[in-house]
């Protein structure tokens, strides 16, 4: 991927007429098909902090999964850092997910049987680093996110906020230029949510990482400098604004 050195005036993400329909394997209706996204057009530039909002079932997660190269659109095209994702091989997709995109989930999605340290280190292992070097880097990252003393804890020995910090550290460990966060504060209380959002804001501001996050809450969305609103699979609002809280 040449993604790390694209010019700021070139979009990091360009989505054209993107559609997504799910095939419902209905016993009676073989070709039953449920369209979730309709002709989505988007351009996202490096350094943006975007909040995606919309009612439940409006297709936010579906869009995020496609942007994160975890799922493929049924129509339209998706260009990531100037390259058409549809042309990527399986290995290239894995590489993009590993190096260029960091994913943060509502349910944290940590590997239960591994310590916080090892959880953060796995993306480095998949990138081909050796065990000891990867642990060293994971440790320094956990220390930066304030989890220095929890490195040997297993996910079930950590609070929700701590787990999400581990997950964010894992998303950051390969220094991606894009972070996708699907309701990262959905399982957290207000106080912890604010802390997590402050962390995102800091990453966006200090490291210039592009962040796209899905949320239902206005005060979370307020951290972003661009708001996209989905309704029934259509973009109904896409506006720049200055973040109100920092």
């Amino acid at each position, binding site marked *: 991927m040449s993604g790390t050195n694209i010019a700021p005036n070139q979009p990091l993400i360009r989505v054209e007429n993107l559609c997504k329909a799910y095939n419902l394997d209905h016993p009676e209706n073989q070709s039953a098909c449920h369209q979730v996204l309709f002709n989505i057009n988007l351009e996202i530039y490096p350094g943006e902090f975007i909040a995606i909002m919309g009612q439940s079932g409006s297709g936010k997660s579906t869009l995020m999964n496609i942007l994160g190269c975890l799922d493929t659109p049924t129509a339209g095209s998706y260009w990531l850092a100037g390259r058409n994702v549809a042309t990527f091989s399986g290995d290239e997709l894995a590489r993009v997910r590993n190096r260029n995109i960091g994913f943060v989930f509502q349910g944290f999605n940590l590997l239960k049987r591994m310590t916080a340290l090892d959880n953060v280190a*796995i993306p480095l292992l998949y990138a*081909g680093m050796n065990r000891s070097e990867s642990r060293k880097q994971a440790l320094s990252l956990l220390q930066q996110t304030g989890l220095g003393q929890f490195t040997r804890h297993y996910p079930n020995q950590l609070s929700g906020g701590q787990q999400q910090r581990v997950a964010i550290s894992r998303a950051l460990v390969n220094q991606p230029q894009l972070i996708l966060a699907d309701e990262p504060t959905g399982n957290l209380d207000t106080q912890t949510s604010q802390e997590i959002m402050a962390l995102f804001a800091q990453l966006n501001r200090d490291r210039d990482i592009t962040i796209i996050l899905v949320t239902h809450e206005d005060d979370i969305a307020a951290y972003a400098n661009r708001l996209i609103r989905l309704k029934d699979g259509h973009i109904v609002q896409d506006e720049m604004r200055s973040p109100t809280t920092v």
Partner: protein
Amino acid sequence: MNLLIIITESFRALRLNRLRTGLTMLGMIIGVAAVVLMLSIGQGAQANINNTIASMGSHLLIVVPGATSSGGLRFGIGSVKTLTAADAQAIAELPSVEATAPVVSGIAQFSYGANNWSTSISGVTPDYFTVSNWVIERGDIFSEADVRSATRVAVLGKITAENLFGTEDPIGKTLRISNRPFLVVGVLAAKGQSLSGRDQDDNVLIPLTTAQRQVLGNQFPGSINLMLVQAKSAEMMEEAEQEITRLLRQRHRITGKMENDFTVRNLTALAAVASTTAKIMAWMLGAIASISLLVGGIGIMNIMLVSVTERTREIGIRMAIGASQRAILTQFLLEALMICILGGITGVALGITCAWAISQIADMPVVITLSMIGLAFTFVSIIGVFFGFYPAKKAASLKPVEALRYE
């Protein structure tokens, strides 16, 4: 992700499910142990038979009195006394025949000092020792002259010598056979069991004539129980068989459609059949045992499929953070392979232990070879890859979103 890390990851996954891993491995352990055990028993039996054949003497025919019976070859005393030492002499003159060894045999009572022993006794000529590959351990065999003058000399089988004389050196001692004194002139080297399972070392050999006239008291003077014939070469065996039949029919005045009053058998061919049978048996045992390996392999596949389903979410997470399909495939394949290899090592150890125990307890010959162990491992690895591949492939081809959504 480099291979070493994947190996440790796989190992970690196996350790986390110790009971399940252990039970799955048990299938492999039992299968491998069974294969090793069966092969070692089979090859032991085969080696035993090959030893016997090697000690038997080469390109041998056996001629016994009486018509071919449906029961096949009969050893021991023939029911009819139609074969004579003179027949043997005549056969020895045939162009395809190297040597003949007429034999009379029976059971006799032996004593030396206070020791009594009853065992088989054979009257033979000096040629018998060469034809049937006997090696003299101590002393010497008796001579043609001994046969001509029917002297009372004896050559003892290893076991008989031990039973009668213990640690004493029997050479030059006098023992009594059916109450007549005999001078011991030689002791034979041990040979082991014959093809029919008889212990060949428990015997006494005396001159043919002595046996006929003084010990066994034949009804028909000059008749013999059997005759070993050594052909000049392996290629000439069939020719020898035909020549012997023609000569004996002529000597016994058997004409036209009349049935032979003797039977000629190719001992070497019989031995070859026995050897092949043993070989087939050895491989059959191995093949049967390998069915349990197959069952173990299916068990591995089953468990791996369950494991893949259980860990669908883990697979999704790994894919989301950059695991390639190859990395996932390798991880699950290695898990299956590790169960197999670890099971294989334990199984080989168990198999060898059992084989050893059986050889000790049941006094069975067992043979354990490196190639057998190599074979077991090759088999196990093939099974690991074969049965591990489908579940691993299934894991690797999961779609990231779907795997992540899996509860």
